[in-house]
């Protein structure tokens, strides 16, 4: 049974042997002159810049703060939506007032330039 695979093993052996022979001969016989040009990751691409750990711009934090504040307010919308019919008009008016307050704060954030990306 193994006899059937023998040629495959031989072929693998030859392939690995040829590869090892070529690398060894290249490192033994080839010329070695290292230049800075050769050391960079992409010899033909654009140059890489900066450290591996990228610090996100502090501007993301401002967006995150606004998101957290306005997003979490939805926690009050879900129970209201689930009980919409039972709460009736009083519930609707209260929710409109709640959203109006949120709207004023959003207008405030907008006028104060908190929504601008470049400042």
């Amino acid at each position, binding site marked *: 049974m193994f006899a059937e695979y023998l040629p495959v093993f031989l072929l693998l052996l030859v392939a690995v042997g040829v590869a090892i022979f070529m690398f060894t001969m290249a490192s033994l016989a080839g010329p070695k002159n290292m230049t800075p040009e050769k050391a960079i990751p992409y010899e033909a691409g654009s140059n890489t810049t900066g450290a591996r750990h990228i610090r996100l711009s502090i501007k993301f934090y401002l967006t995150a703060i606004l998101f957290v504040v306005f997003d979490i307010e939805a926690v009050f919308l879900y129970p209201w939506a689930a009980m919409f019919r039972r709460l009736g008009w009083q519930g609707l008016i209260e929710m409109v007032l709640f959203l109006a307050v949120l709207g*004023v704060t959003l*207008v*405030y954030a907008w006028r*104060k330039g908190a929504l601008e990306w470049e400042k």
Partner: protein
Amino acid sequence: MSVWMLVSPLLMLGLGGLLVMLVDAFVDEKAELPILTAILLAVAGGVAAAGIVNYDNVALAGAPEYLTRYLAFDRFALFFDVVVCGGAALSALLAGGYLREHDLERGEFYILIIYAALGAMVLGHAIDLLTIFIGLETMSLGAYAMVAFRRTSARAVEGAVKYFLLGSFAAAILLFGSALLYGATGHTDLAGIGEAIEGGNASIKLVLMAMFMMIVGLAFKVSAVPFHMWTPDAYEGAVTPATTFMSVAVKSAAFAVMVRVLLTVFGDDLSASAASGWPPVIAGLAAITMVYGNLAAIGQSSVKRMLAYSSVAHAGYAMVGVVAAFRVEEIAVSSVLFYLMAYTVGNVLTFGALIWFGSNGREAVSYEDLAGAGRRHPLVALPFVIGVLTLMGFPPTAGFFAKYYVFNAAVQAGGGMIWLAIIGVLSSAVGAYYYLRVIVFLFMKEPQPGAPIAIPMRSGYVAFVMIIAGYFVMKMGITPGPYLDLAMSAAEQFVS
């Protein structure tokens, strides 16, 4: 008269704050913001005061359930509306002078004052664990932001970091205590919890743990030793009007909720006696707060930091009155209320005088800054002198009667509480040293050669605040009767 009159101070601040936000967002000229804010707060306080006077004519019985379930509209709450609104209005005017002088004028400050004051008022009204938490956080979040207001200053930001971290930690502890109370009794309203505990339907272990955690959380807010670590840094780092606001409104509101929670929830015989429950705990806290606050204030070279430790010590004096409330409710609670009112005007006067002595680029903070300033500007130094005398408790100022009433309450409570009054008197005698030192520097020292000389700022706002606060300090010192009657009528409901 309708119940809405009693609700209107809260509504006015809530809606008025939105109005101020819109004005700040759409009007470029910011000059009117301090005045607008102060008028809003003063009107709200005035309506609350009118509510106390006409209280018996108000039909509370027909009030809608959604109003009265979470908030009480009693004289006690209205009293704190007056104190908080008054302190906040004066702080806003001080900010009008201070922020402009030091080129820090930004509209946010006034919005923060309004909403922090709203949170403080909600705390005074709160009769449910839910509204206590909401009020506490609304007030505290505003106060954190006010401390961090001067964000280019390392001291301000560091003070804000400490205040924020420790304050949030304390709020989480208080919240855990609240949840335990809810679990032990099945109620979130204070009266329901109190009845369940009194009826013996609650696990006593859970209740004791909850009581301990709530006391720790509130002790942070009133800056009682050993939970005061944030106080000197936050008070010194903050812009002085923010310090003024924190030391009067935030502290008063924390005392309001402390008195209400201790007396309505833990008012039963098991939780409140001379030997068990909260009275010995608060008594211990009061004693070390008074002693430590006064001793630490002596060593300070900065007047602002000294006033921070002085406010720690004053929390201790007010807690003496809180302890006495377990036995002589009316006398003790009214003494605490009078104390907070007198302390509010006295502290506004002193911090305002400190602000007055600072001009652009030269803020007066240390004793040395004040050397000889009193002789050069006697009229500006006068409120400073009256301010430190009332904080010291010198007759005939408001501070004298305030201290007299709380110590008297401890003596009236008798049985094991008299030692607290003795510690209070002794430690306030120690306090006289660092308060008088301000006067010594103002009038008897000369500035070091080459040192910058304090020049008072020119601000109508600050001068106006000095007149108002000075008037009340002297008025409450010479004729304390009407103010004590007001405090008595607010304390009436706790008589069992």
